[in-house]
Structures are given as C-alpha cells and as structure tokens.
C-alpha cells in the first residue's frame, strides 16, 4: 500500500523530469542547435501575423477597458483625499509594471498559446510532422522555431500596446469624462514614471512571459497524445500551466526588480 504510493510518486516525479527534459530538448533543437534565419523569414512573418496581429483586437479592447476601470476606480478613491491629479501616475505605474505584462500574457496564453498547441497537436495527429521528417525537412526548424520566435517577438510588443491603450483609456475616463485637468494628468505621469525602472522592467517581464507561454504551448502541442482527446487535454494544459507560470514568475520578477532583495 505505502510502497505502492511511493512507487507511484517516484514514477510521477520521473515522468515530470522526463517531460521537462523533452521540453528543453525541443527548445534546444529548434532555436539553439541549427538556426537558419534566411529560410525562416517568410515563415516567421506568417507566424507573427497569426500570433501577434490576430491577437491585437483582444489586447486593444482589454487594454482600453482595464485602463478605463483603473481611471474610474483611481479617481473615486483619490478624490476623497483631494489628490485626483495623481490618477495618471497611478494608472501608468500599475499598467507598466504589472498589469500590461501580466494580463497580456494571460490573454496571450488563451488566444495564441492554445491555438499553437492545437495546431501543432493536429499536425502530429494527421502525420504531417512525420511526413515533413520523411521529406527530409526538420519539423523543429520549420514548424517549431518560427512559432517560438514569433511568440518571443510579439509578446513584448503586445504588452506595450496594452499599456499605451490602457493609459489612453484611463485618460478618456479621468480627463474627458470626470474632468481632471489634463496637464496635471500627463505631467504627474511623466514625473513619476522612470524609464529604466518602470518601462524597461515591464518590458523584461513581457519578454520572459512571452518566452514561457510560447515554450509551454509549443511543447504541449509537440508532446501531446495524437488523438482528439489528447489534443484537447494538451490545449487545456497549455492555458493552465502558462497562466500559473506567468503569475508565479511575475512574483519572482517583481521581488527581484522592485523588492530591494
């Protein structure tokens, strides 16, 4: 009984380690081992379109609404202390440091990550990956690598767009509707936001999250059980694991960047 449990625990630990090893191998094989930048360019552009451009709508809409909510909440709280001019600063800092990278990464996992997993999983199930190999084309280079790079490139850009749209949405609510003096809104923001401390750190987060989400998505697709059930489970795992990993890493990164550790 106990032995059984220990054995199962050991087995699960081993298979988790093996899975981690395989995901590392995918990463290594596709982007470290044999890069082929020229061949990849058209494929990369296509993937940037699918992963990045098609995610724009959800990113812009979410960014605008989150910015508007921040503006509204910030105003109602700060107005009690007579410091509603600080809304700009509050909105900009919370977006740049936290909300833009984290929310973008969560949306990105749901919108692009799940699509990546399902697409690669289906390619596996319909033997397209195997037939690429038989034609003599390395699927790591042709299928995996452009998707990984596209994810790395798109995530920081989407995060920046999210922050810009959010700040603009907050301005719409706080300045245009609630009547804060616009000079104060923008001046406060400019004064409080430090390029290195806030903008760059936010971007670093976005880069890290983009890496994590894309890596998990691609790995889950490539490693899935090639049946419809296996693909649906892999897609779910992508969203769950990627979201948890993003939130966990966000804490670690925040502690490193702003926690004076």
């Amino acid at each position: 009984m106990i032995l059984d449990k220990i054995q199962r625990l050991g087995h699960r630990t081993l298979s988790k380690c093996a899975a981690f090893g395989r995901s590392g191998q995918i990463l290594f094989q596709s982007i470290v081992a044999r890069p082929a930048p020229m061949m990849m360019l058209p494929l990369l552009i296509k993937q940037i379109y699918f992963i990045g451009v098609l995610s724009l709508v959800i990113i812009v809409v979410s960014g605008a609404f989150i910015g508007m909510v921040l503006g509204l909440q910030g105003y109602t709280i700060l107005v009690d202390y007579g410091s509603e001019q600080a809304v700009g600063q509050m909105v900009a800092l919370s977006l740049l440091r936290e909300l833009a990278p984290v929310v973008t990464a969560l949306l990105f996992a749901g919108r692009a990550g799940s699509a990546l997993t399902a697409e690669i999983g289906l390619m596996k199930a319909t033997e397209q990956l195997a037939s690429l190999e038989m034609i003599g084309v390395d699927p790591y280079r042709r299928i995996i690598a452009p998707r990984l790079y596209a994810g790395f490139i798109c995530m920081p850009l989407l995060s920046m767009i999210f922050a810009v749209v959010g700040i603009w949405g907050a301005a719409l609510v706080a300045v245009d509707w609630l009547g804060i003096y616009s000079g104060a809104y923008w001046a406060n923001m400019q004064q409080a936001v430090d390029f290195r401390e806030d903008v760059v750190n936010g971007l670093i987060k976005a880069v890290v999250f983009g890496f994590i989400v894309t890596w998990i998505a691609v790995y889950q697709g490539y490693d899935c059980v090639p049946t419809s059930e296996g693909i649906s489970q892999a897609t779910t795992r992508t969203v769950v694991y990627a979201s948890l990993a993003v939130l966990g890493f966000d804490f670690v990164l925040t502690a490193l960047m702003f926690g004076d550790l």
Partner: protein
Amino acid sequence: MGQDKPVVEGKALPLDDIIVEIRNMTFTRGSRKIFDDISLKIPRGKVTAIMGPSGTGKTTLLKLIGGQLHPDSGEILLDGQNIPKLNRKDLFIVRERMGMLFQSGALFTDMNVFDNVAFPIRVHTELPEVMIRDIVLMKLQAVGLRGAVSLMPSELSGGMARRVALARAISLDPDIVMYDEPFTGQDPIAMGVLVNLIKRLNQALGHTSIIVSHDIQETLSIADYIYVLSDGKIIAEGTPGMLKQQDSEQVRQFVDGLPDGPVPFHYPAPDLLDELMAGGVFK
C-alpha cells in the same frame, strides 16, 4: 505465374541485388513485442509487399525503415548504411532518397494541392518555378488529379487526398517509395488505376516499391515478392506464385482471406468464455 514448383519457405529471392536489409531486428512497444528478431531483404527495383492483419506492425515497419522509430536491437541497412545509427543530418540526407505515402495521406493542410506536391521539390532543388509547375502537373496527371490542382486538402475526399499524397511522395523520383495501405478507401476505378500506376512507376522509373497492405488480391497482382507478418514474425515469404502454392495453414488462411485459422484475427486477449463467465464489471 511462372514458378510452379513448391518451394521451401523463405529460401528463394528473385534477385540478389538488395537495397534494404533488416537483420535480427527486435522492436517492442510497452511490453508488447511488435517485432521479434525478424530479418528480411528488399530487392532493388522490385515491388515488395509486406502483408499481415492490421495491428501486426506494418506501419511500424515502414517507420523503422524511414528512421522515425528506433529498433531495440538489430540492423536496418539501406545500401549498407545502418539507419538507426545515423545522426540526424545523415538521416535527413538518406530520406531524400525515400518517398513515403502515409496511411492518412498527411497532406499539409495549410497549402493547396499544387504546393503540397511542389513542396519536396522546392525544399531539395533549386529548379525554377516554371519547371516545378510542369513536374507537379505531370505527377498530378499521373494520379488523375490535375484538375484538383488548386483545391485545399480539406476539399478532397480521403481517396483523393491519398492520391495527391502519392504524387507528392514521387515528386522527387525517390529510389524507394513506401506505400502504407494505398488501396484502402479507393473506389474500384481508382483502385485499378493505382495498381497500374504503382506497377508502371516501378517499371518506368526503376523505383524500389515497398507496399504495406492487407488487400490480398491487389497486392498479389502487383508484388514481385511478398512477406507475410504475423505476431512479430515473418510467417511466410515468396513470390505470389510461391505463396499461392503453399499449403501451410497460416498462409492458406491469409491468401484465401479466412477469418479463422492460425493467424489470429483478435488482439491478444484471454479466452472469451472465461472472461464472460468471470462476471463482475469491466475494469
């Protein structure tokens, strides 16, 4: 069929010019031995068929020859090169000499028929687009689907998809073409065309063809040499004439297409009556 003498099992090959040789190969999946120390030779320029009930590992055998799976032990030699021992780069070079028609067709769903057939040519040659166009149209003409050149794979029926995949598999005129169940799902006309096509391609271009199939009549009609697999072993081999002459019960059952006999139709299982009588619920 010429050879009417009864022949001792497994002792006569039509040719001694061998392109693929498998030596003492064992392959297991989980705890199941798919291949148990099998050896076989595939003659160059001929049509060799691998037959056997489904689930015996015919597809697995093709994947082993293509280097997509690795045997537990034994050698798979392609013109003397041991495929399981090749590194990734050499393996991809060797694969340029192979064309494989997958059971499901495996067309790339994001490209139309033309681009699918042109894909291997574009990857491996520097030919100008005009020439690629001519080659692709010729290959599609050969499989009777030139009119479908601009359709997407999702617009094709299963049989059509398989024929496009065949055109793609032969687009680079490989030395070896492996066909995984090419006849399944084809209507009688397409079937006849395919049988002829495989035969013709084999003769005209000097390909070595390896056909995996359980369609006995069609396979007997085009194969030069046949291996019959069952239970991880080769239970018979020979030319179609030799196989038809054999009186081994196993081979008779297979050639005559009988469900019951020494070749198991069932996946390994406990006795049905025992299992039913044992009662209880399914675990």
